[in-house]
């Protein structure tokens, strides 16, 4: 074969790739959901996200202004994933508070939480109930702080109070999460006269293992960082001797205070780039440069993250990560044939779905359906950016629920599912593997220790995906080779 022919062939291949990329762009929007009702929701409500954020702040107690049940349901849900204590206080609306307002309950609740927990901060998230009756929680909180500051008995000291509006009729737990991060920064960050060397890192809703790894990366780059929130210890702590009222760990308050003087912010989430997030706020109010990246899942997205870190730190990639990346590439090569052309459904929070699509796209798995209960409007574009050259256009479904995913899955005939525990029923019906990632994982142990981010996270996900497919092949084989 002459050199020319090779060039021709590669030109042809490029043309085909371009065409398929073109197909991605002109793809029709997914058909609107044919059901009015939500059937097996692929989302949780906003205050849950806010509660997670507050749990990841040093000395903070999450507090819901609404019915007692909201706090209890969310606690149970979060406990089932993390298998850790998760205290969320509630103002506990009664019928009269629903009619005459819950201000009194809120005040007494804050007093009792302060007395019991001696918190540094109380994060007050609203619920659909108090929002619907039109409570001005922000004013109530201000009034409470004023009242306490004039109270001789308390010596005028109240915990920091941060309020965030999270009605569950608007958005999902992810929206509650980002809103809480922003609310905390807005309430606590103080203008600074000089730029500090540290970096704000807003990772979004990731696992405890992810948070630990991010901190390790920053350390290795010798970048001083404030990670908000940081529930890596508060929701994945050691066995204890005495019960900690508020578990040790969490983002230090003084760190959040200094966020306005940071050198830069890094915020993960391609579907929140147009939104008014913590990083956007710090940039517009204090001129802190915002680097808004996708969740670093897979090599390409992680390369972008590390490249940003290299720029900020002004230093090359530490050898440790060069080696992690090298081993990851080597394993991609070792395993590529096991995964090539396989069809996967990925689901969960929008930004997680984007990251997973990036990862599986770069190893040769086709994301035939990318589904999320979220509805930012940015999912399609984000997936097109991170997975541009797929041989087949993925179906993109935002505002999806699990029954619509199940109905599509029957037609799409995927080889595997990647997402949280709630997809288990679909995987079971189809007899295909489910690779568990994200939240909630409540049918396995160790959800909080699943690593998704960076080269190391991609390595773990890649190994698990390949092995799930190998195991499936072995299980469904008539022969059952022990050597694959």
């Amino acid at each position, binding site marked *: 074969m002459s050199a020319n022919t090779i060039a021709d062939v590669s030109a042809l291949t490029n043309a085909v790739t371009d065409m398929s990329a073109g197909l991605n762009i002109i793809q029709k929007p997914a058909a609107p959901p044919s*059901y*009015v*009702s*939500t*059937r*097996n*929701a692929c*989302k*949780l*409500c906003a*205050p849950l996200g806010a509660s997670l954020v507050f749990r990841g702040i040093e000395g903070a107690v999450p507090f819901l202004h*609404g*019915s*007692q*049940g*909201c706090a*209890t*349901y*969310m*606690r*149970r849900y979060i*406990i*089932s994933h993390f*298998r*850790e*204590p*998760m*205290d*969320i*206080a*509630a*103002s*506990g609306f*009664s*019928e009269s*508070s*629903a009619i005459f307002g819950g201000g009194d309950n809120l005040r*007494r*609740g*804050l007093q*009792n*939480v302060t007395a*019991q*927990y001696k918190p540094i901060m109380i994060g007050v998230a609203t619920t*659909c*109930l108090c929002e*619907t009756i039109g409570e001005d929680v922000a004013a109530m909180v201000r009034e409470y702080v004023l009242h306490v500051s004039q109270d001789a008995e308390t010596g005028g000291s109240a915990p920091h109070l941060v309020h965030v509006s999270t*009605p*569950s*009729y*608007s958005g*999902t737990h992810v929206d509650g999460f980002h809103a809480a991060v922003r609310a905390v920064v807005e309430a606590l960050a103080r203008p600074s006269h000089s730029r500090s060397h540290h970096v704000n890192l807003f990772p979004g809703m990731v696992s405890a293992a992810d948070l630990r790894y991010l901190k390790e990366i920053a350390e290795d780059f010798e970048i001083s960082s404030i990670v908000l929130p940081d529930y890596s210890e508060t929701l994945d702590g050691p*066995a*204890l*001797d*005495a*019960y900690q*009222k508020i578990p040790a760990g969490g983002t230090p308050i003084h760190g959040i205070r200094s966020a306005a003087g940071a050198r830069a912010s890094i915020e993960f989430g391609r579907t929140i780039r147009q939104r008014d997030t913590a990083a956007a706020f710090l940039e517009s109010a204090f001129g802190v440069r915002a680097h808004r990246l996708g969740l670093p899942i897979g090599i390409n997205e992680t390369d972008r993250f590390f490249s940003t870190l290299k720029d900020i730190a002004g230093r090359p990639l530490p050898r440790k990560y060069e080696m992690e990346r090298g081993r990851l590439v080597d394993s991609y090569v070792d395993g590529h044939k096991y995964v090539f052309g396989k069809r996967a459904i990925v689901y969960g929070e929008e930004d997680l779905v984007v990251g997973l699509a990036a990862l599986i796209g770069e190893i040769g798995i086709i994301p035939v359906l990318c589904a999320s209960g979220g509805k930012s409007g940015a999912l399609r574009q984000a997936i097109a950016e991170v997975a541009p050259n797929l041989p087949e256009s993925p179906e993109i479904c935002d505002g999806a629920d699990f*029954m619509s995913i199940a109905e599509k899955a029957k037609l799409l005939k995927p080889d595997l599912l990647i997402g949280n525990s*709630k997809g288990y029923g679909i995987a079971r019906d189809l007899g295909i593997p489910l690779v568990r990632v994200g939240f909630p994982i409540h049918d396995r142990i160790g959800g909080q220790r699943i690593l998704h981010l960076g080269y190391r996270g991609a390595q773990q996900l890649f190994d698990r995906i390949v092995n799930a497919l190998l195991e499936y092949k072995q299980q469904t084989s008539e022969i059952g080779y022990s050597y694959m």
Partner: protein
Amino acid sequence: MTDILQERERQVYRKSAEPFQIDCEKQSVAGSVSQRACVFCGSRVVLYPIADALHIVHGPIGCASYTWDIRGARSSGPQLHRLSFSTDLQEMDVIRGGEKKLFAALCELIDAHQPKAAFVYATCIAGIIGDDVNAICKQASEAKGIPVLPVHSEGFKGTKKDGYRAACEALFQLIGTASTEGTAATSVNILGDFNLAGEIWMIREYFERMGIQVVACITGDGRVDDIRRAHGAALNLVQCSGSMTYLAKSMKERWGTPFLRVSYFGIEDMAQALYGTARFFKDPEMMRRTQELVHEEIDKVMPQINAYRRDVQGKKAGIYVGGAFKAFSLVRALRLLDMKTVLVGSQTGSREDYEQLRELCDEGTIIVDDSNPLELAGFLQEKEVDLFIGGVKERPIAYKLGVGFCDHNHERKEALAGFAGMVNFAREVHSTVMSPVWQFTSRRRKEMAV
């Protein structure tokens, strides 16, 4: 001593010579971090196991999400109860009202799943925005030809107990709407067993062996048609009295059906339930069969239970459960294992319940109403508890402190009722108390060093 909020001091009692006094059946103290849920939770747990009914939550998404397929309530047939349906109200619905959405949702879901009935749970804001849920249910019922029952379970309208009542009211609307033809003279309804891990199948088999017909299981492995003809049964057996007494009383009033309070947990209580039922029917032959059954079952399980007891005897237990009635059975079941209950509490017990617990327990036992994580952690340490019995929210408190744990809540997947269930219970207790992992937790490490 454990720190207790001033407002809650009267909800804790330590058994002593001091006169008995406990506050209970009141709204949780704001900011206390109660382990209780809300009215909706009460309704949802009671009705959840009805497997051929459609359960739809009318409200924003949270309430439906958090209750999707979370319980171990099994069905021998349809699995419709394990799906989660919601009107998922959005901001515009809150402004404009959710009635149209609810009607459309009901119609499409009834068409798709062909249920025998539908339960519509009105959550917090359904009432606030003024949706006429009753009218929509009536309209949907007429359009689709099945009972569509509103369940008024707005979370803030009381406590979990009020939710039980709302559920009972919905059930009561179904009862009496079908023929009782073919119902035997010796027949019962099983009220207040939720068929966790198949428990009701075990119980049902005992009754059938005694020669008793079980008309309706309310609600474990429940079926709408059975519930509709439940008024034909000669007797209601009420377990979980907190949730079902209201229904039993309503049925007594309306149909004259007498009821017996029973419990199927532990050997003593299980045997009592069967004997009490046999006594009710005043049939010596049935009593003989019951005695045979009880002896046979006890002979079967005692050797295994004794083997577990040898290892666990003398250990100290703490109990914190939803309803106090279950706590009575647990104290007795633990006693069979020669374990001592040093802490017992419930979310919704009444004064009479706590008084009975006081009689049942030893000196020094802590009795607590509507507790919270900080108190429970304090009590576990103060009483040096070896085994804590509760639900998912109590589990991490125990584990964090190096204390064994047994799940006795609705989410469990182990059958703990009946005679065979007692073996499972003993095994559960044994597998946590005897685990070698505690050697690494600090509490036990210290004990071992002493």
